[in-house]
């Protein structure tokens, strides 16, 4: 029997990986992947808690988060393609037209 703390530790590590990825990596696609990792960290937490608390709500929430993550990827890639067509940019640093 794997203890709950193991799941929580795994999800915390994944979440930190995603967080650092968003903050450090410069490529849009990698940033989008890092956000997906953050969402999946939340899913692991939800499913683990759902099992140990014997309550169904967490698993339901995980299903909804998976669906929304898919939608996010679709909208995000569309926006990234539009930006790439317009400015041939794939890095966060190259997008610097707007600033005060």
């Amino acid at each position: 029997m794997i203890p709950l703390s193991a799941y929580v530790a795994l999800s915390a590590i994944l979440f930190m990986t995603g967080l650092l990825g968003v903050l450090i990596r410069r490529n849009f696609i990698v940033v989008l992947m890092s956000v997906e990792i953050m969402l999946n960290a939340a899913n692991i937490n939800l499913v683990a808690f759902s099992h140990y608390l014997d309550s169904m709500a967490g698993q339901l929430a995980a299903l909804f988060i998976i669906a929304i993550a898919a939608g996010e990827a679709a909208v995000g890639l569309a926006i990234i393609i539009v930006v790439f067509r317009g400015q041939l940019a794939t890095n966060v640093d190259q997008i610097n037209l707007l600033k005060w």
Partner: protein
Amino acid sequence: MTFDLVLSGSDLLLLAPEIFLTVWLCVVLAIDFSIKNLDHENIAYLSVGGVIATLLNLLWFDYLGVTGTLFHDMFVLDRLAIFFKIFVLLSTVLVILSSIDYVKSFRFFRGEYYFLVMMSALGMMFMASAHDLLSVFVTLEFSTFGFYVLVAYLRDDVKSNEAGLKFFILGVFAAGLLAYGVSLVYGETGTLVFSEMAHTPGSYGLAIGFLMIFAALGFKIGAVPFHSWIPDTYHGAPTPVTAFLSIAPKGAAMAILIRMFYVALAAFKPTWVLLFVVASILSMTYGNIVAIAQKNIKRLLAYSGIAQIGNVLIGLAAGTKRGSDAILFYLLTYLFANLGAFAVVIGVGNLIKSDEIEDYNGLNRRSPFLAAAMLIFLLSLAGVPPLAGFIGKLYIFVAAIDQELYTLLAVGLINIIISMYYYLVVVKKMYINEPVDPSPIRVSIPIKTVIYVGLAGTLILGIYPRPFIEWVVAATLMFSNVTDMVAAALPHGSGG
């Protein structure tokens, strides 16, 4: 672990406004696809008709006092939810009307624009009813998806693309924080429903979870540590979308914030009050000081919006029923003044194709109507009597005095003076400076309508606020015991 979903017709009646709007926007999309060479203006008026019908339905619900919950407390319809739904739909109507001329400049996808606006409005209506962390997450993303596309709508405009990308990256980052925060709170409390969390003991997991949820909602309303996307997104987005973004999501997210902190976390009030005091002081001061340096009217209104949200947060820092009343009333005054000001910006921008403040030089000579309207909206945003903004600020400061938050009050008053400066710089340019190009600016009828509605709202809320104050007091009636809950929790409850 069994689930039973029992729905009767009278339960579904609670969802009637949402169901009606869903059907209507599908019909609008189908008409746009199937009838060739249809003037998109008809699509706009069709959309306005549907949204107004939904609005009337909600007003009728409010009059009858229809309330109830659905889907295991995930969806709640009470007076507070009805208020925020009316708030969102009112701003949707005004935004669609002020979009009509702007959309004419699009080469493609004119009909879909209205569909996306209504879709976001639908998401925000559900946000106003969210009573569960799962529905908070789903509805927040639902409404934001529409905005991601709308902000990047001008496909050939690099500024719009860039604004869309920045908004998207920070938006999904906030969604990641929200999801992880929800999972932590679920682990600590074993439930997702707000009202069932009310009696859990405080712990670090709960505190970190709610801080993450607060960060995600702070991102939506643009409070200061989470504001970095606001100026760029507002600048690059199509102006009507900026107008929509500056008001409707803030109202809907504020509904969630009020519900979450007043219902789920009432017992920890001494802890979270500090959070809102800090966020409020930072937002007001930062927004107002940086606004002084702006050269673009959309960026000026973006920073002024950050400062206005600082004022709204004073109400949450008070954490009383009067605080929540004041928030609702303040948002109402902000809706009319801000959408009115954006309608003027759209009207001017459609003609001169520029949003620089320099180009407002001598607006009074070119269009006395637009200049006078802008003057009234800016003075209301600054809080000059007898306009709506004055009553709103007064109400919110009274709520702060009740709780003896004198520091917050002092910062708020100093900030009114700072904000007066940059609003009046715009006024000075409109009335005293000479125009470079003195040709008159013609305003189309839809934009005129929006400006008249804004003027009417700003003046009526300022001169005769009584019925509206009664309305917001009734809308937050369920929070009248929030102070008692804190008192009951204080002897043995420690902070979260």
